[in-house]
């Protein structure tokens, strides 16, 4: 028999885990309770192992779990409120980005007034496509959004290795052919086939938000958001001197709130860049779960780095080995005089499959075709 108060205690403990964003569900609590009936409750190490197994604590949560366990299963002290300390906010540069998005939203609202489609006085699409981002006006932005939305929907096809029933192409599907054959008394009238399924690529986007990228950031972010809408699996990170995972904040239809949260969440927006350190952080925290052989990793950065260039090599190599493709988009590449001599950039180049410009819409359009292959 298990003591009632241990069950309660476990439930509270699970609550504390959830407060730390360690996913523990009701079913896990039930497993945990059952596990506790099976082990020696007085043996602390055993209880810890049992709970770890039954609550499915993953490796990356292990440290937090241990810390909480130590607090909860020794002295049985009362629950303390343990929220994460808030990240310091660097508002100065972000305010600009925020403005940009408000401008965008403002224009969306006034869209009815100016009307859909061809607007007199606007740059025709062809011109718009070649216009550098830093020369954009607010109406350009709106037009760009439409172009992007159309482009982005082209994206996202790739053949999977899995075979699914198909008409008229692919390998013969014996199982289905055979069933058909029964209906015709053993005469093979038509052959059923299987072909490779269409698979959506997974995307991991890493955006540089440092000061040197400032003029490009908002357009690139709009691009990223458009991609995020059509790709089933897309993860978005921002980095400057450290890395921030943006994905949880970027759900559709919440752009206004998103910006607010970004403002408080991304430290040192428009500050310096430490690409190597940021990518190393990505590799140690997220690489294993987010990048697999189907993943395209896109890095948006000008490669101007304040960190140690050698530090970039290792994470780039790790990412390159695992990912299906690594694409580096560099807004400076649009300038014919630019050569990737920045030391960080030069160090990273051997591990980049496509090094492409990202200074205007036309260049982004090409990127989309890269994502598909």
């Amino acid at each position, binding site marked *: 028999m298990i003591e009632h108060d241990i069950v309660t205690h476990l439930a509270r403990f699970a609550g504390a885990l959830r407060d730390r964003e360690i996913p523990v569900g009701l079913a896990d609590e039930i497993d945990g309770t059952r596990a506790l009936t099976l082990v020696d409750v007085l043996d602390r190490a*055993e209880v810890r192992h049992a709970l770890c197994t*039954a609550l499915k604590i993953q490796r990356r949560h292990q440290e937090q779990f241990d810390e909480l366990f130590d607090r909860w299963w020794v002295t049985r002290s009362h629950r303390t409120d343990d929220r994460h300390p808030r990240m310091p906010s660097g508002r100065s540069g972000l305010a600009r980005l925020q403005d940009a998005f408000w401008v965008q939203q403002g224009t969306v609202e006034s869209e009815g007034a100016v009307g859909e489609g061809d607007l007199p006085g606007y740059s025709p699409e062809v011109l718009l496509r070649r216009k550098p981002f830093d020369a954009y006006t607010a109406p350009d932005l709106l037009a760009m959004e439409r172009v992007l939305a159309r482009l982005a929907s082209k994206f996202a096809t790739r053949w999977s290795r899995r075979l699914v029933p198909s008409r008229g192409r692919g390998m013969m599907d014996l199982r289905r052919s055979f069933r058909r054959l029964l209906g015709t008394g053993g005469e093979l009238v038509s052959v059923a086939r299987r072909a490779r399924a269409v698979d959506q690529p997974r995307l991991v986007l890493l955006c540089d938000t440092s000061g040197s990228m400032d003029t490009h950031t908002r357009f690139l972010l709009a691009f990223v958001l458009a991609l995020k809408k059509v790709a089933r699996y897309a993860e978005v990170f921002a980095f400057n001197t450290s890395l921030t995972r943006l994905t949880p904040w970027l759900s559709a239809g919440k752009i206004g709130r998103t910006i607010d949260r970004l403002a408080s969440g991304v430290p040192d927006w428009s500050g310096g860049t430490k690409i190597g350190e940021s990518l190393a952080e990505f590799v140690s925290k997220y690489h294993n779960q987010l990048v697999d052989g189907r993943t395209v990793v896109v890095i948006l950065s000008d490669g101007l780095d304040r960190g140690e260039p050698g530090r970039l090599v290792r994470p780039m190599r790790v990412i390159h080995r695992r990912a299906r493709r690594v694409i580096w988009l560099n807004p400076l590449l649009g300038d014919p005089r630019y050569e990737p001599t920045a030391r960080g950039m030069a160090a990273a180049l051997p591990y980049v499959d496509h090094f492409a410009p990202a200074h205007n819409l036309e260049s982004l359009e090409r990127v989309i075709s890269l994502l598909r292959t």
Partner: protein
Amino acid sequence: MRQEIREVQQAMARQGYIAEDEIATAVYLAQQMRKPLLIEGDAGVGKTEVAKVLAGLLDTELIRLQCYEGLDVNTALYEWNYQRQLLRLKIMERDGKSPAELEDIIFGREYLLERPLLQAITRHDGPPVLLVDEIDRADDGFEAFLLEVLSEFQVTIPELGTITAEHIPRVVLTSNQSREIGDALRRRCLYLYIEHPTLEKEVQIIRRKVPDAGERLAEEIARFMQGLRGRELYKVPGVAETIDWARALVELHRDHLDAETVEQTRGCLLKDQHDVQELDTEAVAALVEHALSTDTPAR
């Protein structure tokens, strides 16, 4: 520690597996709670071995499903033996049987090729151990299908009807974490993360698996490995590499480590060109020195 868990640990040791407390606890709980056990960890830490040992422990069959990208239900569950079916149809062509009669004959059990999942469900003599190896390599669509099989332990074959498991198999899933396993599947299992072994455990493992290696050599190897894992490597060598290396050294009639031997045999340890370059003469010398100094604490 509870007696039953200690017994599991001892039984595993008899099978040649040195299990840490958390491994024994997880195996025991999975047994008692009749839940699949999902094991994650770096390559070469002995994930698959747990399933093999479990099968030995229960004295039952190990049925293994190796996952890969593109693995589908036909390969995992069942397939009809089309060649035999076609032959049979040809033979019966002039018998004038109705399609329904034909169907009954050629969709009999003897024309069914059982693949690992179905084998595990239909086994008569006691529950087998079903090892779903490297589940992270399969597509997520397959994962969803597996989820269904693992919760119901029954399979519906349209031509035969529903087959329900006589004995619920003991299931072990392993993952190298090349991608995240879906939450639904994770929730259905108990979870174990296997770390690289501690110094003491690694010495025990070497002594156990390579009895010809002397005590001194085993300890030096283990100490060297602990030091090596502390360095920044792309492919961190696991216990499998340790054992290979120990065997190689025994073959070479070495009873202790020295820098020259290590350099000659580092192909047993490092499977990546950059790692090999990284481990230059200087690094080897430092690691060997660390391995030989008996008073340094492990890591």
